[in-house]
């Protein structure tokens, strides 16, 4: 036994190496959030425009939480869908401006149009960490109690909206949300 204990480090390392090896194969984008069916993490930050904002400012109804950044090209792809949703009043959209700079973000909104009720300015990615964000774009569906119910990583276009979000929202409404 006393000899065996010296093997502990090498065994620990081999298991770790196997995990790392597996890690190289993984695609982090496929994966759901830890926070599904958990309340939206608390935050007290500012908007991109510098206004203070916290959980209390979130809509009292079902809404989308969209993670975006001015550097993010796919965000431009999903932008028309978000614009339509907010213009037609289908669902409120709250933005999380992730690891961006406020001035660039403001320019981006001015140039492309602003679909967001407001955008939380998450320059250091702290809210992103709490949410388990992999990168922009990502969209969360949050219910009227502020509980995260669905997560979509990557672009939210009309197809994704129809195939994934509309059924999920219908389900929430059926629950009496």
């Amino acid at each position, binding site marked *: 036994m*006393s000899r065996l204990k010296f093997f502990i*480090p090498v065994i620990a390392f*081999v298991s770790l*190496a196997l*995990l790392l090896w597996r890690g*190289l194969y993984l695609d982090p984008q496929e994966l759901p959030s*830890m926070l599904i069916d958990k309340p939206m993490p608390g935050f007290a930050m500012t908007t991109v425009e510098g206004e203070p904002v916290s959980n209390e400012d979130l809509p009292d109804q079902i809404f989308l939480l969209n993670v975006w950044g001015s550097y993010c090209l796919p965000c431009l792809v999903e932008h028309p869908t978000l614009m339509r949703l907010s213009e037609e009043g289908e669902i409120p959209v709250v933005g999380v401006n992730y690891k961006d700079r*406020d001035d660039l973000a403001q320019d981006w909104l001015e140039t492309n149009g602003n679909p967001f009720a407001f955008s939380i300015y998450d*320059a250091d990615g702290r809210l992103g960490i709490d949410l388990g964000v992999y990168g922009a774009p990502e969209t969360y569906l949050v219910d009227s109690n502020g509980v995260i119910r669905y997560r979509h990583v990557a672009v939210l276009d009309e197809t994704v909206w129809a195939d994934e979000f509309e059924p999920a929202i219908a389900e929430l409404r059926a629950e009496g949300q």
Partner: protein
Amino acid sequence: MIPELGSFSLILALCLCGMLGTLPLYGAHAGNQVWMNLARPLSAGIFVFLAISISILAYAFVTDDFSVQFVAQHSNSLLPMRYKFTAVWGGHEGSFLLWTFMLAGWMLAVAIYSKSMPLDFVARVLGVLGLLAFSYILFMLATSNPFDRIVPLPPSDGADLNSALQDIGFILHPPTLYMGYVGFSVVFAFAIAALLSGRMDAAWARWSRPWANVAWAILTIGIALGSWWAYYELGWGGWWAWDPVENPPLITWLFGTALIHSLATTEKRGVFKSWTVLLAILAFSGSLLGTFITRSGLLTSVHAFASDPDRGFFILGILGIAIGGSLLLFALRAPMMKSDSGFELVSREMFLLANNVILVVAAASVFLGTLFPMVYQAITGGLISIGPPYFNAIFVPLMMLLVVMLGIGPISRWKKTSVGFLVSQLSRVLVFSLVLGVALPLIVLFGFSLAATVTLILAAWIVLGIAADIRAKTANKESFGKGLRGLSYSYFGMQFAHFGIAVMLVGVSLTSYFSIERSVLLDAGDQVELGEYEFTLVSSERINGPNYVGDAVTINVSRDGEMMMTLVPERRLYIASGTPSTEMAIDAGFFRDLFITLGEQRDSGAWSMTVYVKPFVRWIWLGAIFMALGATLAATDKRYRRLRVRQKEKKQSNSITAQLGSTPQVET
């Protein structure tokens, strides 16, 4: 043609590494003097060819040879000359060449400064390092050759160096960090040589100690430079972010810190031998893991290199063979190691053991926090992020415990210390630390904060403990000065480094708890107050740099209506890459930094900006400098030099070494 010579030189170095990794090792095994004697000249040869390689890469940058892909990606004809030169390590390929060149530098140093060690031991150490260098160069040639060309149509100009890297901090940080990182390979090679030869005694620990100390000192400076660079370049005024790329150096540093303490115990008392060897392997693993994480694309991070799965597999292979192999060797050989002496429950050995346990637990927690998201994903398929709250919650209490031990350890005696003695030495220290810790924040008028008070008590505990120990150690001498002269360099080195911890603690706690900041919109003539300072925007103007355009805003800072200085923060747009960049304006001071980051200009003409007052932030890096100086001082202790003198006399008899050893004979 010239870049191809760089590749060719790499291939030659690879061949030499192949020889170094086999012949001297076999020679040491078989007792063949001639083959063992190859180790030193081969190491020198590897250094020369890698030096040629890296010079050629630098030449390609300086001459704007954009047909070389690496140059085209990381330079531009407008880039100022000094940055063209440092762009050599501005990306994955070049920085890996620098890393390998550093290793060759350490190998050359071992070849030169190893006259006091037996030949078979030197042959094994250099042989192991040769194998490492072999794998690095092979990796470079196979997956990331910095000399790859763009054919047939090279671009007319380069994409420019990342703007955040066009800066003095970046010129210094990576080479220093690599130098420290790679230094632990040397200590690792010593440990492997010890395992291979079965020679794990106090002499082995004595040979390793100066190398471990120097590597540790350089790594400390490297990490501090990185922190300083992040502080003034990245614009958020923070000095540590627990980023996945920041953590591996810290893990290595924590293992390294445990190692230099454990080595001391092994040298002085002949105990903890297998533990010391294991720590040497772990510290080295930390450095390899750092490379793996940065270069494999495994973890996403703000400053990871562009990723490539092939590289990931290759590095993982190196990692698996080097670390797995050495841990296996450890498992087979470690049971042979026996302690030379015992010790009691209250003794310096015990405090050093506590130090080791705490440091290793801290390193393991940082490691876990860094890799957990990936491991979690590999096992469950879920995705999570781990942020500063986790690290702070675990790391801070551990470090506090460590500092408590740090106050007692140096005062305690080897083998056995009476509790009464410790109490008599430390009771006054404790009382004064408590008084100082509570009084200082109030006196300096920052206000009261429990966390800051606790850290100040701990800092005072270290400093007063050092004072008490020096007093006790000089008490029986005729005069204080004579007593001081009687103490060894390594003793002063230790106290110096410990003092550095106290300085850093003060910096960390006061900056963390008493920094103030304000985000404002200022028009020309507007003023904002922050703490006791008033900031007035005077004017703004367009600026044209060599490879950027931008705005500079002039801000006058005054205190109590009295003009103190002018600060000029800038916003730049780098032309070639189109990336914007913010140049902070910082007034550095011993007791506080004033720090301004410039936002954008609004349509009204007003500028948005954030102003910060950060008390004692410089002390964080000052503490690191003290630590590094302490470790260097300890490495120059007389007893390491004395050995070499003794060895010189012996040398005459060793005629084979004299004939075949063509290494530069600096010592003689």
